[in-house]
């Protein structure tokens, strides 16, 4: 992160030179033409895939029918938004989305940082690599496979019930996926199992940037292992953690879709159904693309608000933001 601030450092000077106006701008462009040309493909990509689709938001205000031209669509104002907010279930759906997301985020951060610190403390290189590989492998499973694994592990004759019964901890097998209240926890655990290793990679990279001399100095000063972790490793990762946190807060309404859809069922629907599942059921499967778009817009707006709020909060706390 230190490096990044250095790159950013010259920018404040820009306004001072800018009094020469447009010419200076051109000159700067010329100086940096290699860089500019290299960015062109990405600007085009961003424009096509991120800005053009925003035009599709018009659908949210229409009774959109496919294969009709834009002028033939019927405009209905906020009808679809009203349907969303007036539906009794939408509040529940929103609650599920936020709860799942927050649980995933907190669990995801704590476990990934924890795993990274622990892996970093390992001294046996071979063992370290094996642990790291095993921990990030589940990330590459598709959710369809992962959900099948989760549901068979949690089924009545699954391994967890067998262990619980064997240890006489319960009198009767537990129907894990049949209890709505447990769903958030199961989802959080499943997400963690699947992604903890993968998420830890970036923290490991951050740890490797920390100057080894600091550790040596601390050692000489008599700091214990735990003290070194608390006073050197974690502060060293702080900037990475904050950037990731801000970015993740932007995705606060993206609690995922596959896991909830695949693990959800009638008995846990009140806790499993999130915005994306709701959109599939009432938007896309009903060919009600307008409703799906309205829900998507709602998500984007909320995400944007969260992102800006988190960023300015972080700036206020003197941690530097994304922008």
């Amino acid at each position, binding site marked *: 992160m230190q490096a990044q601030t250095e790159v950013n450092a010259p920018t404040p000077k820009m306004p001072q030179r800018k009094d020469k106006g447009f010419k200076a701008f051109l000159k700067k462009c010329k100086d940096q033409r290699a860089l500019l040309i290299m960015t062109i493909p990405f600007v085009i990509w961003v424009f096509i895939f991120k800005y053009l689709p925003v035009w599709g938001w018009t659908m949210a205000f229409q009774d959109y029918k496919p294969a009709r031209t834009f002028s033939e669509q019927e405009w209905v104002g906020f009808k679809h938004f009203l349907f969303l907010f007036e539906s009794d279930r939408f509040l529940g759906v929103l609650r599920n989305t936020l709860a799942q997301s927050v649980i995933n985020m907190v669990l995801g951060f704590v476990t990934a940082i924890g795993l990274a610190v622990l892996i970093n403390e390992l001294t046996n290189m071979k063992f370290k690599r094996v642990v790291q590989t095993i921990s990030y492998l589940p990330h590459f499973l598709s959710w369809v496979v992962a959900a099948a694994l989760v549901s068979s592990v949690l089924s009545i004759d699954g391994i967890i019930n067998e262990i619980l019964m064997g240890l006489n901890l319960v009198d009767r097998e537990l129907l894990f996926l*049949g209890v709505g209240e447990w769903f958030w926890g199961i989802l959080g655990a499943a997400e963690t199992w699947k992604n903890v290793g993968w998420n830890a990679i970036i923290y490991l990279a951050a740890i490797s940037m920390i100057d080894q001399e600091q550790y040596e100095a601390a050692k000489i000063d008599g700091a214990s292992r735990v003290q070194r972790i608390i006073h050197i490793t974690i502060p060293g990762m702080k900037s990475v953690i904050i950037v990731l946190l801000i970015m993740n807060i932007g995705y606060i309404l993206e609690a995922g879709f596959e896991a909830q859809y695949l693990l959800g069922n*009638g008995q846990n629907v009140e806790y499993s159904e999130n915005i994306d599942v709701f959109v599939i059921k009432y938007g896309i499967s*009903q*060919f009600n693309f307008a409703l799906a778009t309205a829900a998507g817009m709602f998500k984007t707006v909320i995400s944007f608000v969260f992102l800006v709020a988190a960023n300015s909060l972080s700036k206020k706390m003197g941690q530097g933001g994304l922008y």
Partner: protein
Amino acid sequence: MFKFKHLLFALMLVLLLAVVGCSDDSDETSGENNEPDTSEEGTDNETPEEEPEENLEPVSYDFFDASGPGTDINTSEVELGKRFEEATGVTFDIEHIVGDVNQKIGTMIASGEYPELLNAEQSTDAVIDAGGFVPLQDLIKEHAPNLYDMYAPYWELMKRDDGNIYLISSGAPNGYARPANLEQGAWFIKREALAELDYPEPRTLDEYFAVIEEFMAANPQTEDGADRIGFTALTYDWRLFAFTNQPNHLAGFPNDGGAMIDMETQDATVYANTDYTRDWLKKLNEVNNKGLFDREAFTQNYDEYLAKITNGRVVGFFDYQWQIGDAWNKLGEDEDPYNDYMGFPITFSEDIKDQYLDPVAYVSSPGMGITTGTPEEDQIRIIKYLDHIAKIETQKEIMWGDEGVHYEVSDDGRYYRTEEQIAMLEPKEFRDAHGFTYFEWGWPRMSGLYDDGNSVEPRRQPEVAALSYKDGDKEFLDAYGITTFTELFAEPEERPWFPAWDTPVETGSDAALYDQTNNDLMLRQFPKIITGDPSEFDANWQEYLDEFPSDLAEAYEEVIGNGAKSKAEKLAEGVENANAE
């Protein structure tokens, strides 16, 4: 500097390639359906000859079949397809659906790129709304006399509200052939239980669960020590209807969907909020309290459900036979006749006449349609291909095979199969290679009886069915004093509107919303009602009723009721017209 120039050049090249690549792509997609190719070929050949009748120039079209997964082939790869190619010059690249139908068809609609021939399954209405199909009525009348003859009685029913025909569905009924084996819904019990309890014949819901209870009490575990499951249910995703349809069947109605159709007035009444559903839930609640109801019934998915039935732990369940086909076949393949299931027509009480066997039914949607963007000459080639399939000889070739090879004809004109022929036709590989599996459903087809009195489907021909029973089957047939397994079931009453669920429901309308809303509600509340304490049953049921979307239900009843009425009317008209012709 030199290096920089190189870099710049490379970048420009990449950019250029990207731009060219993109534009190439879009060109390609617009021509993906071979349209330019085929139309060029078509015109090249037709103009000099001036006789489209003789046009046998080989041409291949795309057929996208969303009705179910399967192996993607070109029809020329199978025997029947080869023969049809010789007769018409046309072959089809058949592509089956993988994954979600709505998504796939939705993409087609959004892009406007369709295969020439399309079966859009549950998304059919959306394709029609988007103007994706071409009207077929003139094409059929002009170029497809055989096809017209086959569908003439249903001509009016095939028309949509705008008066156009867009779809040819499979199965134009011609008389009634009673199935010999269960093809639709029934309450199944494991034969092992029936044999042990000296072949009981349950008629009512109480008797049915009494049989299961008695067997479970004596045999709580299977031979390999797994816990038996008294009664399981399929509640996964859209297949939930196999569960929620149960009270309808128990009340003596066939599967008309979410509503019961009155025999006299043809009015539709939703039953999900009636005492039928309440009584059924009450029974299940009681069964659950006795520990006979599968605890995982509401958490298992379709595969887990099938696996459970296959591995022999389940004593009883209700389902439609075609949904458990895979499990059924697997159980039938082994030598053990006792792990198979036998179906019973269960009703609430003995005085209710069961209606589990489907009456003669014409279903107008889904079906196959020719899509917009297909040039006219290609439309003609396709409709002629379908016309060739609609010829009676071709129909018999598809359903029965070749006389002397796949079936025999007795002196009095009855078709039958020898035991060797039945054995030869049993392996799926054989039926695949010959093409039976690809052509026997989905294409224009009659159902019921040929005019000579033979059954369209060999499996419904009593001569064939009788020979197909193994010794294990015969033990049960004898014990119940019947000759076919459907003999326990009552004859279906005539219901010209059947099935009412094929009434087109406008996407996004209140009626469509009812379906989704109520399904979600049942999925949420029924588990609570069934697995709850019996003392809370009334409160739970009331909670469900309070949430029941009555307004939407009324809209649904109106749409389905009107659909049933107009279907019955049009059918009467159509039959008259066909007779007059």
